[in-house]
């Protein structure tokens, strides 16, 4: 089982930073949508290497099945 960790920081003016880790590929955007629904509007999104890493693996699996 893989653990997904999410760190939520709520600053004293109510701005929220959500740091999602352990989720490869665009699956983490499901969590991003959940937090947007809970908190408000997304101001900025910064994807990291893990996001792109899994995305390329998924393409490889599709090619193998063809």
């Amino acid at each position: 089982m893989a653990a997904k960790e999410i760190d939520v920081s709520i600053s004293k003016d109510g701005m929220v930073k959500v740091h999602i880790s352990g989720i490869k590929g665009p699956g983490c955007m499901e969590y991003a949508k959940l937090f947007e629904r809970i908190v408000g509007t997304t101001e900025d999104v910064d994807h990291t290497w893990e996001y792109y890493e899994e995305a390329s693996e998924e393409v490889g699996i599709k090619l193998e099945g063809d």
Partner: protein
Amino acid sequence: MSAVIILAPVVITTAWPIISAAAITVMASLGYATVSTAVDLATKVDVDTVNKVELEVENSQEIGDTLGREEELVFTKDGIVVTFKRDIRGRLQVCVSGDGISKIKLRKMGEEMANKVVQQYVYNRVVSELEGTEMSIIDQEVDEDETIKIKLRAWD
């Protein structure tokens, strides 16, 4: 890590009970007493206070139908009266009044209290909305700069 997301809060004034809970928590922590009726207010403070400021909380909005109903919460401490209210347009307002206190100071107090209530509102929303999901709170703390930090974990 996979992503870092920055979100600006939107206070849904239709959810008045969540705002009330946040305001009561914050104001109690600042030593303010809840004023339940106009009679209480008249006995505890001078309602004809000289200085008064009204602030509108940014990013507050009404979603859904409340039939244009106004809501109000009043707190007091040492002659200072703080009112949180949803106006008829659905915006959240903070009104601070106090005799012998400058409008600049009242405005600063109002902004700080409004920010704290928004922070507590967001915290309450996050905790209540994540209940029953695959995510569990494994740690939480308040930093020296008053940032609330929550660590969540979910398993596949």
